């Protein structure tokens, strides 16, 4: 174990390098730029096999699709408008069942133009058939890279690793970047049964008639739901090697908690601090952190919130004109519970608006009265 004091982005690039990708294709965009920059440098130094400096994000994802279809391990990184530009091809990647990893440095979407962090970019890709993991810390993000490759290649589903832009990407912290030897032990070589091969030509992603199309989508949905088992097993393998354990969800101080904060990403670190402060004053506060947003862990969320009094679902995203995305999923998860908590929605932190320890503590105290709320913070 080598703990370094390093910027999150550079640690992520190192973790990607240790997974020995066959193809990296990126178009730099803030705040993911340092990851792409470092991978490009590694390519120049002969540490990465192939880096394609594409002219736009649509080409980046297209290059990944080609590389993966030909049996290569493929990876990219992007943010915000870059991810939105990939949108069309994201569906092709999952529909063609092509493993790949995309690191999303989460950032607000235009307009108005804003380079700062929130999760609207990746949340708006939630129906694209990709696995989505949201990380609280840089350590978790780094660990999630080999985990995502392994799960993706096992399930033949593409995977996004989401890290909060700036809060994580630009923070220099103590991070244990896994060494090549350890990654080699954990992550087998990618060798798909079906791949493009000029000796044995075949087509991928072809036309499906109305009689067949829907069953492809049904299979994709079933397999994405089933990916939960793969994620859980692969994460436990990672735990055996590193002692760092990740679940579909994380529970903090939940055992006797009455008022629960539910969120994703780096704000959960602030929430843990807030909960410690509230607990010191005798408040029964807890945190439920959702790490896997796709597939959504309905059972785990229901189990964690069963019997709780009040729940505040906080999210850095909005579904304009509809239910807030995380809030909607949590309500759906609670549907069959006989003792349902009161669930409130809080949207905040958009475009880099800081959500502090104090903000979180105030929310948890606020929901104690049992009122149902829809608020922006």
């Amino acid at each position, binding site marked *: 174990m080598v703990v370094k004091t390093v910027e999150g982005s550079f640690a992520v690039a190192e973790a990607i390098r240790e997974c020995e990708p066959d193809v990296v294709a990126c178009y730099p965009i803030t705040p993911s730029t340092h990851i792409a920059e470092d991978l490009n440098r590694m390519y120049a130094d002969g540490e990465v096999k192939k880096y394609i400096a594409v002219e736009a994000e649509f080409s980046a994802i297209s290059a990944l699709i080609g590389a993966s279809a030909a049996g290569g391990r493929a990876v990219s990184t992007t943010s915000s408008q870059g991810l939105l530009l990939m949108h069309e091809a994201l569906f092709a990647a999952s529909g063609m069942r092509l493993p790949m990893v995309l690191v999303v440095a989460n950032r607000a979407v235009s307009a108005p133009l804003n380079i700062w*962090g929130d999760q609207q970019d990746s949340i708006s890709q939630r129906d694209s058939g990709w696995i989505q993991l949201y990380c609280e810390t840089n350590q978790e993000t780094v660990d999630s890279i080999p985990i995502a490759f392994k799960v993706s290649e096992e399930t033949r589903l593409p995977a996004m690793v989401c890290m909060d832009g700036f809060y994580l990407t*630009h923070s220099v912290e103590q991070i244990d970047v896994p060494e090549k030897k350890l990654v080699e032990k954990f992550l087998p070589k990618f060798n798909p049964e079906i791949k493009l091969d000029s000796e044995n030509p075949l087509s991928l992603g072809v036309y499906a008639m109305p009689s067949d199309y829907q069953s492809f989508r049904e299979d994709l949905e079933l397999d994405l739901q089933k990916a939960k088992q793969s994620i859980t097993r692969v994460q436990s393998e990672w735990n055996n090697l590193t002692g760092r354990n990740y679940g579909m969800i994380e529970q903090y101080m939940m055992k006797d908690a009455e008022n629960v904060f539910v969120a994703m990403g780096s704000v959960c670190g602030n929430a843990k601090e807030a909960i410690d402060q509230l607990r010191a004053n005798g408040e029964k506060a807890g945190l439920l952190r959702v790490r896997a947003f796709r597939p959504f862990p309905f059972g785990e969320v229901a189990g964690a919130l069963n019997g709780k009094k009040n729940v505040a679902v906080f999210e850095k995203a909005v579904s304009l004109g509809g239910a807030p995305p995380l809030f909607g999923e949590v309500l759906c998860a609670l549907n069959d519970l006989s003792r349902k908590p009161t669930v409130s929605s809080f949207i905040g932190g958009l475009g880099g608006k800081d959500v502090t320890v104090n903000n979180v503590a105030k929310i948890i105290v606020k929901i104690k009265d049992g009122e149902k709320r829809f608020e922006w913070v």
Partner: protein
Amino acid sequence: MFEVRFHGRGGQGAVTAAELLAVAVAVEGKSSQSFPVFGVERRGAPVASFCRINDKQIRIHQQVYAPDFVVVLDEGLLDAVDVANGLKENGVIIVNSKCDASALNGKLKIKEGMKVFVIDATGIALKNLGKPIVNTAMLGAFAKASGLVGLESVKKAVNERFEGKMAEKNVKAVEECYNELKQ
């Protein structure tokens, strides 16, 4: 936990200063976290960077609102930026200046209990580096004024970051600032 804010101008190395401090602190087995002001960087414009120092692992990711220490790399900023903004009651400000601390009082919105140190880091940088780049030198002053990090740890961080002659010169600037700073 201690929070440090660096003020400089784009290109003066405020971000590197915060990062070197994070590395130096980690040498001593403590936890640290440094980050820039999130935004678009422009050469010459006022910028800030931050470093948190803690005995335990740092879990929070949010802006710094009430620093314990403020390090000002460029005295000229005092006319443009309220560098004492949010500073804790017993906070400490270290300014790169040739003037006496008392001469800066008019420009600094100092409250009772706060402490100001001055050091001619530009002079020391020019002497040792031949350039008015003071970010490393000011870390020497910070180590002395704060007692939060040892001189040897700062030197180690500087040696890791720079190579050969450049490392040597920067280490000299760090040492001279450390020795020159009057308590």
